[in-house]
């Protein structure tokens, strides 16, 4: 775990330097068009932007060491609070996307891998290609036009309808509505998450399906699979117990990697669907040059990536007893 500290330090340094090197600063971006030179200078002084960059960076690292990420200029609140407020939305969205992807991609991939070049394989592969090559912002707009516009199945965006759910206790709307036994709010939360989750998930279905397919194909040629068949086991048991369980390692790896990508992929999708998560937060942060917020967010993304990788590593040992750390 301590090995990640230099990584975090390096990443914050990189973000800090890049952000400060980019033209523009929070004062010019946030004060409105009417600002005068005096207003700009005063705002910079108040926000500590008149100090040299290295001083600002050292100050940031020192306070970050005490888990204080500073105050956001744009939101007028501590960065930690701002992120904590938005994170549940992104986690909920990512969880749903991954659910959609796993539910569709794995059975499809297994079926395709079990019968290569059959019609299932052809359809699955075409669908996979469609998923991979579809830019998710475009898919998002198409979904809005189709599902919300033409069929009126789901709301066009946002995360909840005003007036249905009570005050949020956890930030996770699904959890809240179950805790409050507010089934209308549960349904509302589900309808809202469906479209953005689909826009994110379809992309993943493609990748995951292809990985599952090739992993299953590869494992199917192993000797123990031949043995299993020779023992007279049914094809179903051979496929699900002997092939799939051994083909899972690359699949889990990809799910883990994709989970990381989902966090970053949600930056665009969240903006298209007005989903108030950390992705849209990052866009707001970058366009307003909110240094503390952007640095805090990148730090959060890094920690999330590292944690996910750690969990995946632990999962390997769980799935394959031969792997021991």
């Amino acid at each position, binding site marked *: 775990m301590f090995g990640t500290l230099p990584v975090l330090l390096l990443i914050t340094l990189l973000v800090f330097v890049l952000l400060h090197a*980019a*033209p*523009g*600063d929070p004062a*010019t*971006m*946030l*004060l*409105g*068009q*009417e*600002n*005068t*030179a*005096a*207003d*700009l200078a*005063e*705002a910079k002084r*108040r*926000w500590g932007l008149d100090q040299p960059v290295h001083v600002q960076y050292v100050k940031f690292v020192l306070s970050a060491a005490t888990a204080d990420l500073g*105050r956001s200029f*744009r*939101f*007028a*609140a501590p960065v930690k609070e*701002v992120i904590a*407020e*938005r994170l549940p939305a992104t986690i909920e969205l990512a969880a749903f996307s991954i659910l959609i992807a796993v539910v569709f991609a794995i059975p499809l991939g297994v079926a395709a891998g079990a019968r290569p070049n059959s019609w299932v394989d052809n359809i699955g592969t075409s669908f996979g290609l469609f998923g991979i090559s579809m830019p998710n912002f475009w898919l998002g*707009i198409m979904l*809005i*036009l189709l599902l*919300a*516009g033409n069929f*009126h199945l789901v*709301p*066009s*965006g*946002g*995360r909840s309808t*005003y*007036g*249905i759910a009570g005050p949020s206790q956890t930030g996770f709307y699904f959890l809240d509505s179950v805790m409050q*036994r*507010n*089934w*209308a*709010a549960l349904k509302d939360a589900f309808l809202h998450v469906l479209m953005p989750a689909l826009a994110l998930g379809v992309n993943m279905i493609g990748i995951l399906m292809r990985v599952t397919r090739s992993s299953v194909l590869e494992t199917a040629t192993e000797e123990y699979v031949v043995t299993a068949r020779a023992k007279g086991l049914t094809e179903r048991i051979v496929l699900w117990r002997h092939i799939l369980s051994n083909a899972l390692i690359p699949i889990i790896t990809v799910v883990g990697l994709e989970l990381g990508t989902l966090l970053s992929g949600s930056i665009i999708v969240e*903006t*298209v*669907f*007005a989903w*108030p998560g950390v992705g*849209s*937060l990052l866009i*707001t942060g*970058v*366009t*307003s*040059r909110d240094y503390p917020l952007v640095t805090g967010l990148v730090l959060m993304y890094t920690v999330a990536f590292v944690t996910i990788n750690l969990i995946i590593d632990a999962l390997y040992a769980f799935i394959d007893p031969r792997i021991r750390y």
Partner: protein
Amino acid sequence: MNRRQKLLLTGLTALLLITAQARPAEAQTRVSIGVTETMETYNPYGDSVSLLYGIWCQVMGCLGTYDFDKGDYVGMLAERWEVKDPNTWIFYLRKDIRWHDGSPFTADDVVHSFNRARNDPQSKQTQNIAPIASAAAVDKYTVRFTTKQPTAPLLEYLFDRLIITNKAVYEKYGAEADRKYPTGAGPYKFKELVPGQRFVIAKNPDYPGMKQLTQAPDEIIYRVMREDEQRVTALLNGEIQIAQFIPPHLRKRVESDPNTKATTVDSVEIMFLAMQPKPPFDKKEVRQAVCHAIDRDRIIATLLQGLAARLDGPIGPGQYGYDPNLKPKYDYSPDKARKLLAQAGYPNGVDVEIQTPVGRYTLDKQLNEAIAQMLNGAGFRAKLLTPEWATLWSNVQAGKTPFYYMGRGSIVDPSVALSQYFETGGSPRIGYSNPKFDKLLATERQTFEPAKRRKVLAEAMSLLTDDAPACFLWRHKMIYGMAKNIDYKPTPSGRIFGEDIRVLK
């Protein structure tokens, strides 16, 4: 009915009951508005965008606003005001206003608000009170503002910009007050703010005159929807009743639906091409040649589909000090442009780089592609650059962009904007300097008699148009989509006040 069916029926009934219970009492009328600005902070001083000034003004309160129908300023929390001497303004507050917690609204609150706008560490509104040296309560309902120097356009700075907040609540709870105890004095009450998602306000029947406005919505939900398609789809679906800023190409979709309509309003934002007086734009002839080279009428008729009004000077009809007798000075004439270029010493043309934001203003990139082509047809060799907004905007503010397409919004009284862009030392954005123009602006600021002031303003703007440090192009017409049962006339300033909305049965 077997046991299984009974169980299912009981389950369904229970679910129905729970669902019915969970639904809160419906407000009588509720209007949702799809807006493009995002709302992020509970601090009324924490942002400087048009929409939020309007919302905070309704919830917290503000001294007054500009009535575009009347063409004049009207009081809100202030009943009337007077200029005692060129540096002293007295505002007489209404005595029948109460904060939403029942306590009376007084002059101390106004002084407190002035101090917060200036000193709050998160304030992004210091520019609104920049001309003011100090504020003091003369008595319970009278406030005195002392300006640093005579400032005739002071109301342009203060009205619907200086947000009035509750002194007692702030002193009791400090910075926590905004988030936990949002107590306003306006015609609408704070109900809910979900950052990045929505701002909900509810009618305050105790505000003078609100009871009579029976058709004004009981609840208004401002919903953040930055994506155009989403706003239009939500409007057609009935999720929202008003959609801000429909792009021209989606207008037909709104108009062809039987339940929705579209309406336009001239924006108060003026669009122009700014030219820094550095070579080749240090020569007046080159700047004038740019203005002659652009066929504004054709661009408006074709690319903008008629959704813009041509500007022949810095401002247009409805804005303070507009002179209807101003003759169109720059007709479209590539020949005149070429001649002017030759006079300036560029008979073989000249290289220029024009910079434009992308996606910030209506069709900005497309319009500038056309502008660049027209410049090329008139002796220029124009190259179009499209930097990211943050880069362009900060370069412009630092005076590093010689030739650019830009808008200046919120212009009701043009004095502040003219000073900012064109007065010597106003800002480095253009870096133009003309002592004659400076003198006219200084006179205008010290002239408190409206008719005289308009005359001086008109003279200043005429001088500016001739000297052409910028080529004034057009004001966009903004399209608003709305449900058929909504009667609302959008304001040119982009503020959306609940009192102006009527929900028809």
